[in-house]
């Protein structure tokens, strides 16, 4: 196939739109990354009407046969964006969800950049936050044009018409025309500058538990993930990468591998060897038969403890100031009680269920890539760079992702697959084994924190000092957002707290560990900061001899939304009611990703120290809810994700190698360990907050605080060490 011919479909509208002027989308929304915001968007003339299709902007296409196609700038990886984003458009376009078909956006930073990130990516829980205004605007613009086209045809006032379920109606005369019939005429009309958005009280779709559009294909086995693509003639490859990060292949004896039935080729790279075969079974068997000698390189002696101690040392010296309020030094000096603590959280792997994979066909004049990616434009860019091709000769087909959690924001898997495909004649699907996936992940950073608080005679925190050291993922991934030694992700959840803290001082010391790359991981900065802040808030409450909920509430007088969710969670959880011995409740509150969220976890610690989370109650105020069921689902899932990390999650290095390899050594929570989860949503007309990650950061301190309530043991290092919780005989 000629790659250029692949740029049909949505790419067609892309070309037309890139010539248009752009609309500035002022999305000043709290939380998350706020970068330059410029959303390319239709404002000029509609597509020249040489066809009968109507393409008012990059997100909507209405064909003459009435088919409505919505182009999704955000990728579906379980979070429900393929339902929620269409809901925004469909609400304003006045079509039913059953009438739309959803397509993945092609790589195009100009058209499909996330307005809050400035790049085409799905992450940071901000698809809805970024899309809330512009994609409703996209729908409203198209609807206005369709109504105008119908009014013109009928020679009536557009005000006397209305749109409903993919038709324009003229109630006075009982006439109706389908959008498909209007497409050609609408396409000739100018695009209105300010289409009027619906009033919230008129919403029919937004705020409902609308059914997921991706669910039917996912229950009958027809959903196509990146790993499922099968271009004609595709071969399957699997690989071994240098076990120590930064190592090289010294020698390979591939005689036995080549003798395996179905093995076609051995591809040797500087730091990896791949076996190309007719099927993955043969590729894996061939890989096992390879005798590879590695030069472990500069990180041959690296171990996690060394990294942790370097981070600890780094917190002894001052770092860039993330936030300072009042005068901490003198407040601390006057404090009646002082509390100090150090916290530590480990490296974590993503371990998405779909292992890393990417299919590539490199030809002389172009390259075609099939992958599930959170950053499709980056996938295209790295493929072009690696293959030495101009960008426009690389076609990327994005797919459903079998779990992202931040892993697929990085495109190392695409680079690797192109390197291999350059040596293979025809398309090749590179599938990582689970062991490769875990041992060559890019990991949630290790962090070390020092935190201290000073209380007055009533127990109020009058001084708050916090310094932490760790990697900055942003500094690598989005360098312009790393400024003056700080980035908005590393500090989210540690600064701009909802609590009334008159004197606070927070510093972040960036330390990049050698030999191990860090990456975004569901809730990233907050996954660490909320654990530390909410654990320490519990420590302060204990030092003040006050109830953990009452103590927090007393610091939230200026934050009514915060107070409301905390009260609600405590009330629904039965906070204060008696529990049996070695059972306890723990609370956490956070304001991150633009969402207020409180959780109460109920745990049971057995005599041998093992922890079981029995029940979790969550109250959430994420402003306007697009899909109530998705909000519940995301919280339920995020809680399981967080408990997995709290109980089991830890990646360690020894001699430069990751010690965990598969689900036996890197364990996941299973159904028999899953708690009952209750979600209570506070209805609120504020702009929407992010929901994909918030539940994960909140659960971890709720669990450790509950363990404190159950056992009196304060856990300051993750994962939870059950040996330390064993009941003394």
């Amino acid at each position, binding site marked *: 196939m000629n790659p250029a011919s692949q740029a049909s479909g949505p790419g067609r509208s892309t070309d037309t739109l890139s010539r248009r002027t752009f609309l500035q989308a002022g999305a000043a929304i709290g939380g998350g990354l706020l970068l330059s915001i410029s959303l390319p968007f239709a404002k000029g003339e509609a597509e020249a009407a040489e066809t009968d299709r109507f393409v008012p902007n990059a997100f909507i296409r209405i064909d003459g046969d009435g088919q409505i196609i919505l182009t999704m700038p955000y990728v579906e990886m379980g979070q429900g964006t393929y339902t929620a984003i269409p809901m925004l458009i469909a609400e304003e376009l006045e079509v039913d969800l059953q009438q739309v078909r959803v397509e993945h956006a092609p790589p195009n930073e100009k058209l499909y950049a996330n307005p809050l990130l400035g790049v085409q990516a799905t992450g940071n829980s901000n698809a809805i936050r970024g899309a809330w205004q512009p994609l409703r605007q996209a729908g409203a613009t198209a609807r206005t044009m369709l109504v105008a086209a119908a009014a013109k045809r009928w020679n009536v006032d557009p005000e006397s018409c209305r749109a409903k379920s993919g038709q324009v109606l003229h109630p006075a005369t009982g006439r109706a025309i389908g959008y498909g019939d209007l497409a050609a005429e609408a396409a000739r009309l100018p695009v209105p500058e300010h289409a009027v958005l619906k009033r919230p009280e008129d919403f029919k779709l937004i705020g409902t538990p609308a059914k997921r559009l991706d669910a039917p294909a996912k*229950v009958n*086995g027809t959903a196509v993930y990146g790993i499922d693509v099968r271009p004609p003639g595709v071969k399957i490859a699997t690989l071994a990468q240098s076990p120590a990060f930064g190592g090289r292949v010294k020698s390979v004896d591939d005689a036995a591998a080549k003798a395996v039935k179905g093995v076609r080729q051995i591809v040797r790279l500087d730091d990896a060897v791949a076996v190309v075969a007719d099927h993955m079974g043969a590729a894996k068997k061939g890989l096992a038969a390879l005798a590879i000698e590695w030069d472990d390189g500069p990180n041959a002696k690296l171990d996690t403890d060394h990294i942790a101690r370097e981070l600890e040392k780094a917190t002894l010296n001052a770092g860039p100031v993330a936030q300072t309020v009042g005068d901490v030094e003198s407040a601390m000096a006057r404090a009646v009680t002082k509390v100090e603590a150090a916290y530590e959280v480990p490296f974590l792997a993503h371990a998405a*269920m779909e292992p890393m994979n990417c299919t590539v066909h490199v030809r002389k004049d172009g390259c075609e890539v099939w992958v599930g990616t959170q950053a499709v434009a980056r996938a295209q860019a790295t493929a072009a760079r690696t293959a030495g091709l101009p960008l426009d000769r690389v076609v990327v087909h994005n797919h459903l992702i079998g779990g992202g959690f931040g892993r697929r924001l990085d495109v190392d898997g695409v680079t690797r697959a192109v390197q291999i495909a350059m040596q293979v004649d025809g398309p090749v699907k590179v599938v990582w084994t689970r062991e490769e996936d875990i041992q060559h992940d890019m990991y949630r950073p290790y962090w070390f924190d020092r935190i201290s608080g000073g209380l007055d005679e009533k127990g109020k925190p009058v001084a708050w000092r916090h310094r932490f050291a760790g990697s900055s993922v942003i500094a690598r991934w989005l360098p312009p957002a790393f400024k003056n030694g700080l980035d908005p992700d590393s500090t989210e959840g540690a600064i701009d707290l909802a609590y009334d803290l008159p004197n606070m001082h927070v510093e972040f010391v960036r330390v990049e560990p050698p030999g191990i790359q860090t990456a975004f991981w569901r809730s990233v900065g907050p996954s660490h900061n909320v654990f530390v802040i909410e654990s320490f808030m519990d420590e302060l409450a204990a030092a003040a001899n006050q109830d953990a909920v009452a103590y927090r509430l007393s610091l939230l007088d200026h934050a009514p939304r915060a107070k409301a969710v905390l009260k609600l969670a405590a009330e629904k959880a039965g906070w204060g009611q008696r529990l049996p011995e070695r059972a306890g409740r723990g609370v956490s509150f956070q304001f991150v990703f633009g969402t207020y969220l409180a959780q109460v976890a109920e745990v049971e610690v057995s005599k041998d120290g093992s922890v079981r989370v029995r029940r979790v109650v969550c109250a959430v105020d994420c402003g306007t809810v697009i899909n109530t069921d998705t909000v519940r689902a995301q919280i339920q899932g995020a809680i399981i994700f967080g408990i997995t990390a709290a109980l089991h999650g830890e990646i360690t290095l020894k001699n430069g190698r990751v010690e965990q390899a598969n689900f036996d050594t890197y364990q996941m929570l299973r159904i028999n360990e899953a708690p009952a989860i209750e979600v209570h949503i506070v209805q609120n007309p504020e702009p929407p907050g992010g929901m994909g990650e918030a539940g994960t950061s909140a659960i971890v301190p709720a669990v450790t605080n509950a363990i404190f309530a159950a056992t009196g043991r304060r856990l300051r290092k993750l994962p939870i060490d059950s040996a330390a919780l064993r009941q003394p005989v």
Partner: protein
Amino acid sequence: MAFTIIVNGNTHSVDADGDTPLLWVLRDVLGMTGAKFGCGMALCGACTVHIDGAPARSCVTSLDSIGASKIATIEGIGATEPGARIQKAWLDLEVVQCGYCQPGQIMSASALLASNPNPADSDIDDAMSGNICRCGTYVRIREAIKQAAQSTRQGAQK
């Protein structure tokens, strides 16, 4: 060597080594990509199929071990009553998120329902704890199995 296997009622001839895991025969040779690769060691359940009605991890089931046994996969399970009930409950309760593990979950759940029309929580734990869901849909999986079981019992009473 060529092997003959029966998948969803259809007979296929497969030329591969006898120790090739069934998962790769299904996915890469026969093009049935519903069964998923997750771990390769029977640790996650994403590759679950039925062999003569019993759930099996196809990533560790060798081609030469199958013989004349009947294989059912997610592509065909909707044709069975327990499979159809489970799939319906999965949709009714919106179980799926990323969905990648769900073919395996549905195969385990439909085998449970076929052998036990009224599973208790502990039966669900036993049957389903071999299936990992990284998105954490466990709460809904449990509810959906119960709903499917209830619909089975109501169906039986009619």
